[in-house]
């Protein structure tokens, strides 16, 4: 299992979603992606994008305005 990090801080939605989508295209089933963001909209948009595209959210945390979302790549 490969684990990668994506810095999407200071980007506003939908750019973090686009970055996640493009990053996941390069990853394999079961890999993990940790993405750091500052737009609170990601807490809705990234999980929604993952649900419709078959990826799993492991965790989504808000740490004083910085949001960290962990994703497991699905098929």
């Amino acid at each position, binding site marked *: 299992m490969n684990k990668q990090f994506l810095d999407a801080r*200071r980007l*506003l*939605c*939908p*750019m973090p*979603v*686009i970055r996640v*989508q493009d990053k996941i295209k390069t990853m394999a089933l079961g890999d993990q992606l940790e993405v750091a963001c500052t*737009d*609170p*909209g990601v807490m*809705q*948009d990234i999980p*929604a*994008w993952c*649900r*419709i*595209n078959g990826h799993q959210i492991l965790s989504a945390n808000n740490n004083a305005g910085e949001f960290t979302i962990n994703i497991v790549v699905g098929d």
Partner: protein
Amino acid sequence: MLATKAIMEQGVHVEGINFFTGFCVEGHTHAIRKKNKAKPKRNNSLWVAEQLGIKLHIIDVIEEYKNVLINPQHGYGANLNPCLDCKVFMVQKAQQWIEENDFDFIITGEVIGQRPMSQRKDTMPVIARESGANERLLRPLCAKNLPETLPEKEGWVNREELYDFSGRTRKPQMTLAEQFGFTEYAQPAGGCCFLTDKSYSDKLVDLWTARGKKEYELDDIMLLKVGRHLRPKAHFKMIIAREEGENNFLQGYKNVFQTMTTVSHPGPLVLIDGTLSEQDCWLAAQITARYSQGREAEQVDVKMTQQGEEKSFLVTPLSSDEIAKEWHV
């Protein structure tokens, strides 16, 4: 949403594409302005895809879109909206996407006569032709008013089960939504693009005029969505935050622009674009003071920051009468 559902009802596998040009009203604006905090921050295209149970591909077309906006072959609408060129571009991108991903045809939710520029009977064939999609472009909601397309000819979809909507009324769409069991849907077409907005278009024209060329970067068009824009002189513009959310957003640009803030009173963060003389700085400070809570005070202390250097200006705020109407971009 309706067009997709109509095609899915015929057993066809559909996936969605959403193009991000940088001019979309939703998303960014909701994220910036604190006054919109009560509104859900959902992305409508993602929400629609989830309701329909389809995959959605969001595609960044910011760079490629510049040529569509700057050099529209079919001109602009009422403001800087190049609707027809925009449709041609997006269908062209969709055509490219289906070729790369082994899909057979494209559907859109267009309805003849719904929009004055891109959805007329005479312009709809232009989109099909100039995009290169030709017969692979199907508009399920008004297909019966248009010539047969490839998916209909090949029997991939049944033309009889498609629709013949036309005109500006949205009643047939609302009835169909009810039939499909949709009780909630995103706003009807239009109003989702900043380029259809006069105030936004005026700001973009002002930007181009000040720079002497029709060019922009994503940050430029983002900043046009935020704050009060004042151009007291041709060579400089001020962007004044109107509320806390905008203040926070503009903070992200404070190392790129000259900034002003009031020290003696609470007030907004102001970004300044241009090269200011000493006299201009005093004027900008008076304007900054005007939009602070010290607007009625005798004197307001304003701090200017430029490339890490700070300067102080003790000024009397301008009165509302002294803020010339023509300064507002």
